[in-house]
């Protein structure tokens, strides 16, 4: 669905991401792992057009991203930023409503389809129970859910999420991963940057392991999370008995 070829990108004159290529399929949950500063956020931002690549190209279907106008691009690729920024006094529903911005008409009117997308996003993230509350009155975990709902409300076939579970407790981490998994299962391409290797192993269909601006391993969780890769990239040992799965209590 989304692919990139010989992609280099960064901030200013230095390229963080160096000459990388990969292709994805619909229905895949791809976990992007790697140490801080390895280029995960840079890759996600370049894929959705926030950063303009210094060379190479990103393609959505058979079209180059640079040939697609901003609004159309926004309808194809939803992006969930690492920062949890929103207007503090805005209601939860209004924050989620912003996900329909790419479809907005001249007077900011939202269509019936748009309203049902908003309702569905609120319900899938279980944010509908506090949809009338102010954003700043929510806990960190609840705010994260609302921002995921905002990204889901775009109803884009591609979802890029930058560390959506950072700073969340285990319950919300698991719930969030289940939401992302369900999105992929519904036929979307989901790429998410993660620091939790256990959750990556448990939920991802495919892992891209990044090191110093390059994807050094691309494959299934067992194929990528090998003792050698973990030592090279993170400087850690493979846990005895492998990575353990977590389950929500009944």
């Amino acid at each position: 669905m989304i692919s990139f070829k010989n992609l280099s990108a960064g901030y200013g004159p230095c390229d963080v991401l160096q000459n990388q290529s990969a292709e994805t399929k619909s229905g895949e949950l791809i976990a992007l792992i790697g140490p801080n500063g390895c280029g995960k956020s840079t890759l996600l931002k370049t894929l959705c057009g926030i950063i303009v690549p210094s060379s190479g190209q990103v393609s959505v279907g058979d079209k180059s991203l640079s040939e697609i106008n901003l609004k159309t691009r926004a309808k194809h690729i939803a992006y969930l930023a690492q920062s949890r920024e929103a207007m503090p006094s805005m209601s939860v529903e209004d924050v989620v409503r912003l996900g329909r911005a790419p479809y907005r008409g001249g007077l900011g009117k939202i269509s019936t389809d748009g309203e049902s997308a908003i309702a569905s996003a609120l319900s899938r993230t279980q944010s509908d129970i506090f949809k009338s509350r102010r954003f700043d009155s929510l806990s960190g975990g609840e705010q994260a859910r609302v921002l995921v709902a905002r990204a889901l409300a775009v109803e884009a076939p591609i979802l890029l999420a930058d560390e959506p579970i950072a700073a969340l407790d285990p319950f919300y981490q698991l719930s969030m991963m289940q939401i992302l998994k369900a999105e992929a299962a519904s036929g979307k391409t989901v790429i998410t940057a993660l620091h939790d290797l256990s959750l990556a192993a448990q939920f991802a269909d495919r892992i891209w392991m990044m090191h110093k601006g390059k994807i050094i391993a691309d494959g299934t969780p067992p194929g990528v999370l090998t003792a050698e890769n973990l030592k090279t990239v993170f400087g850690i040992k493979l846990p005895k008995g492998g990575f353990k799965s977590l389950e929500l209590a009944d």
Partner: protein
Amino acid sequence: MKLALLILGTITVLLISLFFGAADLSVSQTLSALFGQGREIDITIVQELRLPRALLGAVIGAGLGASGAALQGYTRNPLAAPGILGFTACAALGAVTALYFGFNQLVPLAALIGTALGALLILKIAGPRKGASTLILAGVGVGALATALTGLIMNFAPNPWALSEIVYWLMGSLKNAEMGGLMVCAPLTALGLALLLFVGPDLRTLSLGEETATSLGVSLGKVRILLIAGTALCVGSGVAIAGAIGFIGLFVPHIVRLIFGPDPMKLIPLSALGGAGFLVFADIITRALTGPGTQLYLGILTSLIGVPFFLYLAVKETRT
């Protein structure tokens, strides 16, 4: 209900302002004169002096209020105001240059040219792909340069009369308001307001941060150009006719936000309405406090109200 009160309040203030002035006219004389009845002199006073003054105050106040709301929405900073982008200072530099050379008739045109040059310079420095903080820094820098050059011109004023002209002009006033000024100011402000209203939905999306807004199809470059052009038109045309009137763009959006909530899309038109009402109200006070031989300038009054409010906000912001 709240909106109806705001509209009603603004219209009431506009009507009340027609009853204030140096000439002693009764309520019935004023109303008759407004509709072209009564003595010739009364009709002239009401239709050619008081009415343009009230309308000009409303137009300038609307432009300043809307600009402040748009800039606060864009920078996501409650301390942002039209003055921060340096447009007031650039317009003042243009006007002061005209006054220095004795071209008093060309003051509005010179102020508009000053604003346009300032806007182009800020756009050049802030560039199409830079963030809100770069825009503010560019605005503060350009404004400081314009203020310094204004000081230089005053330093070399050819005579005390020219200097006093400049100083009084910088204090801001609607006392010289007439229909001609309104005809220049109103269309330019209307165009500026239209640009700011157009950018409102994007400002709402920008509340999620610049990166997320970009991913939602907002063109930051387009927003910046519309915002600068809209603010420059509103502020530049106001300063061109009435001189420097500060702080309306800072505190009117705040008060409106407290009543109507934070959505920049709604805040821009509502602050325009609030700004119109407030500026006309402030002008009524200057006229009420002005006695024979003394003149209270509008810009001084709005600053005297605005500065304590600014300090209050600054302290509140640093405590939260």
